[in-house]
């Protein structure tokens, strides 16, 4: 089977810091791929390079076998890659509904929409409310509330709901449950399964080992700016994975490159 998303030799330097160092990457169709690694290992930089938020200094990326070079997240989105960034990417002063539809707003039917380009607020609000309800985020009282008035966890929920609702080829989630409560985290995991069941592959960055081992089909272990190895959760224990990613042990057939 061909990978749906493939990268080779990705390198990204920030001044003196090399955040990505000749990194390879593969995502198979329909799978949930977890990416784990220490803080600062370069996981976020990797998915930013894939989703167009950062232009890598070197390296190539293929989507569905076609070489691609996204220069902006908009291009990646147009190609069907939907991302929840660690920093969430919300406009604080705008409402939840506005944020969910940012960049792909719905227009009112008829002449108001086509000529006067009026937004279809009721439809957007209804859709946003549904998606949040699915995530159990109905504790949000008002869909027109500004995002800045939400708690950290609520904000994260909104971002995840947005990506899940719109992703068509690949959905990327950078630590989607970091700020979430037990209940909300569970909902996100269920949502990830839903997305997978729709046939869409998912990249999940997480520090939560139980979650990762529960849900991932394969685990990409990232260390010092590059892929150390890819393991199947059935083949290794959580403590092995932790040992690999922290450098306590080396997986077979890999010699660490300092």
């Amino acid at each position, binding site marked *: 089977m061909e990978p749906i998303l493939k990268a080779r030799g990705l390198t990204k330097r920030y001044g003196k810091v090399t955040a990505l160092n000749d990194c390879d990457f593969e995502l198979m169709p329909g799978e949930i791929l977890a990416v784990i690694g220490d803080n600062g290992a370069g996981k976020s930089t990797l998915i930013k390079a894939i989703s167009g938020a950062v232009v890598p200094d070197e390296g190539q990326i293929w989507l569905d076998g076609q070489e691609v070079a996204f220069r902006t997240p908009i291009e990646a989105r147009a190609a069907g890659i939907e991302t929840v960034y660690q920093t969430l990417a919300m406009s604080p002063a705008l409402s939840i509904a506005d944020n969910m539809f940012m960049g792909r707003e719905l227009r009112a039917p008829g002449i108001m929409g086509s000529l006067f380009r009026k937004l279809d607020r009721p439809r957007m609000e209804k859709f946003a409310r549904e998606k949040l309800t699915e995530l159990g985020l*109905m504790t949000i009282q008002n869909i027109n509330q500004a995002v800045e008035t939400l708690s950290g966890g609520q904000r994260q929920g909104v971002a995840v709901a947005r990506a899940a609702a719109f992703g068509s080829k690949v959905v990327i989630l950078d630590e989607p449950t970091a700020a979430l409560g037990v209940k909300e985290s569970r909902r996100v995991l269920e949502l990830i399964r839903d997305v997978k069941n729709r046939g869409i592959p998912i990249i999940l960055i997480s520090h939560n080992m139980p979650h990762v081992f529960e849900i991932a089909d394969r685990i990409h272990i990232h260390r010092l700016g590059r892929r150390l190895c890819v393991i199947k959760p059935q*083949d290794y224990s959580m403590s092995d994975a932790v040992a690999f990613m922290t450098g306590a042990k080396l997986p077979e057939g890999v010699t660490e490159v300092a």
Partner: protein
Amino acid sequence: MSNDARSVSGSYEAGLKGAAEAVAEFHEPESALKKLQHWLHQTPSAVPMIVLVVALLVFGALADNFFKAGTLSTILQQIAIVGILGCAQTIVVLTAGIDLSVGAIAVFSSVLMGQITFRYGVPAELSIVIGLILGTAMGALNGILIARLRLPPFIVTLGTWQILLAANFIYSANETIRSSDIAEQAAALQFWGYSINPGGVKILYAVFLMIALVAIMAYVLRHTAWGRHVYATGDDPAAAELAGVPTKKVLVQVYALAGLFCAIAGWVMIGRFGSVSPTASTGQLGNIQSITAVVIGGISLFGGRGSIVGMFFGALIVGVFEMGLRLVGTDPQWTFFLIGALIIFAVAVDQWIRKVAG
């Protein structure tokens, strides 16, 4: 081996079964005061409106001639140009930018419209179109420098302000085109200076134009995707970019549209002043005047917050203060002094009401 994972989460997530799904709702006593507070909070242009009403009442009490229809319509016509420049300034400020060149674009556009007609013998209507296009181009130049080269708006427009103003003087050779010549040969240039006179009160077309522009922009900013993108770009440009807003494109469009508004203001200037003068004070002061209107109107200079209707009230507040103080009879230096004090006072009241309204 992954079964340990499942059991781990399972070990406590069992507690989730039957978790409450109810929305945490807090029912407040909905007193009239609460409702008012809520409304103030939801309507950013309400506060400047209140300040305006108070100012009207105060000056009405102080100066006999204030509450005459003629005086009020004079105030409106005096703020017509600032109001249109304020539309330009509003969209720029909403993107967390600032445009110091608005006045220069307006004056240069008016000079271009006049000179193209009189120097090259182009029909006035065509000159107007050319002037509007050139004004838009000047704005777009700002936008390109800001969006593509990522230069700070303040410094870019500080530069283009000087450049355009100098170009304006050089091109026009400091020559004024006289009102009577325009009226004879190119009446279209003076279109916005015409008026209707219901019941003897003169209201310039320019006033209607300003109100129409404010209304249109209020709609565009509130009810179209583009408007939302303008807000998002100003709110947090990095986030907007990640969320899929083509922020660079939006910025170029915003500055170009601002340029168009300025060129319209330039056209209105001809109607209003009769003549075409490269030395019009708007070139020097238009930026400060429009920014003042924007800020008194409650629009945040940090972008993303505020409404264009607030700007309109802001412009009106300044107009009312200026006219009111003149009628009360202060000397120009004291007027200048008091307007400074009143600007601060208006914003302080705004801030205070917002705080009380929580």
